[in-house]
């Protein structure tokens, strides 16, 4: 029965399977959504580059059969920015986790959004630092137990869509690993959107986050998403905090236009230097 090729074989490195992610981990499902979004967006595969940082989600780059880069911790966005500026015709996608993108790489995140660098950032949020052993991260809700918050987290976590919008992202959405078709649609839109586009994906981490909080396995987490998720397109991002085991508001929240980093650069330099200035990279980005 197994003689047929897997439909994702052109995009995934099937020779590397089975992958390292735990049973019931949501990262693999997010990768499927991404692979489908690539196909739906219709961008030639040799014009796409995928960049990841460090962490469980950081391993995504290694399983994708495209130009992909596994960078140092927190530095996926600066690497992607350089890649985009050096080769403006590429569609540059960053796929990484909340710990990598928002904690260690948090500064890069807000500044890339502020400048509206034309990259797509897909952040897999599992509410903790998973690969390093399940420590408290900037997305861990109160009062979740992690290795470094044995008595329960007491810090206020980031609301990622609000952070992205406030920093300047032009496209902001949130879904869970259960809402695959909607997630795929958002990823497709983000891939085709010009400017800094951000999609947060809530995903189960049964091995560390769920186990420490006695929340069951990956499937229990999907059931939780099913029961607690509310779709609210265009919701005010200030109201998108995720409280522990409480409702998760999902949808597309922001879709707006702003000049990208390169457009703003070209405009300014043309104003100052006139005809002497040759627009950056020729290809509009």
């Amino acid at each position, binding site marked *: 029965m197994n003689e047929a090729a897997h439909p994702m074989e052109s995009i995934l490195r099937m020779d590397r399977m089975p992958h390292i992610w735990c049973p019931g981990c949501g990262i693999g499902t997010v990768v499927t959504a991404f692979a489908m979004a690539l196909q739906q967006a219709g961008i030639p595969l040799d014009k796409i580059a995928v960049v990841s940082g460090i962490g469980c989600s950081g391993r995504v780059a290694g399983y994708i059969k495209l130009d992909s880069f596994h960078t140092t911790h927190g530095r996926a966005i600066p690497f992607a920015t350089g890649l985009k500026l050096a080769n403006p015709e590429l569609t540059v996608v960053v796929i990484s986790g909340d710990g990598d993108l928002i904690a260690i790489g948090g500064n890069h995140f807000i500044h890339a959004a502020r400048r509206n660098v034309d990259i797509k950032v897909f952040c897999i949020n599992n509410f903790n630092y998973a690969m390093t052993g399940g420590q408290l991260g900037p997305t861990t809700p109160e009062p979740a137990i992690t290795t470094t918050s044995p008595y329960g987290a007491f810090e206020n976590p980031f609301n990622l869509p609000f952070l992205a919008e406030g920093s300047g992202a032009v496209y902001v959405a949130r879904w869970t690993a259960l809402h695959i*078709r909607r997630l795929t649609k958002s990823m497709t839109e983000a891939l085709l959107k010009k400017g800094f586009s951000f999609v947060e994906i809530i995903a189960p981490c049964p091995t560390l986050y769920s186990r420490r909080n006695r929340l069951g396995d990956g499937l229990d987490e999907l059931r939780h998403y099913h029961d607690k998720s509310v779709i609210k397109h265009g919701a005010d991002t200030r109201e998108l905090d995720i409280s522990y085991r409480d409702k998760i508001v999902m949808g597309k929240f922001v879709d707006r236009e702003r000049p990208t980093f390169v457009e703003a650069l070209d405009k300014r330099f043309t104003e100052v230097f006139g005809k002497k200035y040759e627009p950056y990279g020729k290809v509009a980005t």
Partner: protein
Amino acid sequence: MRYWRKPLDADEIEVPRGDIHIVESQCKGCGFCVEYCPRDVLELASGYNLKGYHPAVVVNEAECVNCQLCEIICPEFSIFVRLKNNQPVCATDIDLRKGVDIIES
């Protein structure tokens, strides 16, 4: 399938049927496909695969309507479904997976 009212063309529409492929050695028995298959086609095996997981098995292939939900929710890329051979393709099949070649001859 139960209908609130029988569609006028119910006799003419051929329900798509799926041909399910499970890569048993890759499955980690998470049960996502079993839980979310709308037609209860799948179950977890009582036996183990090589890695010690209870893999998904097909128990009711005739019920499969090729919706491919199991395929896209599987975090292990270990289950996929193709339209059964020789079945004419209807528009919904193509819509489900735009741009993906889902037909095998």
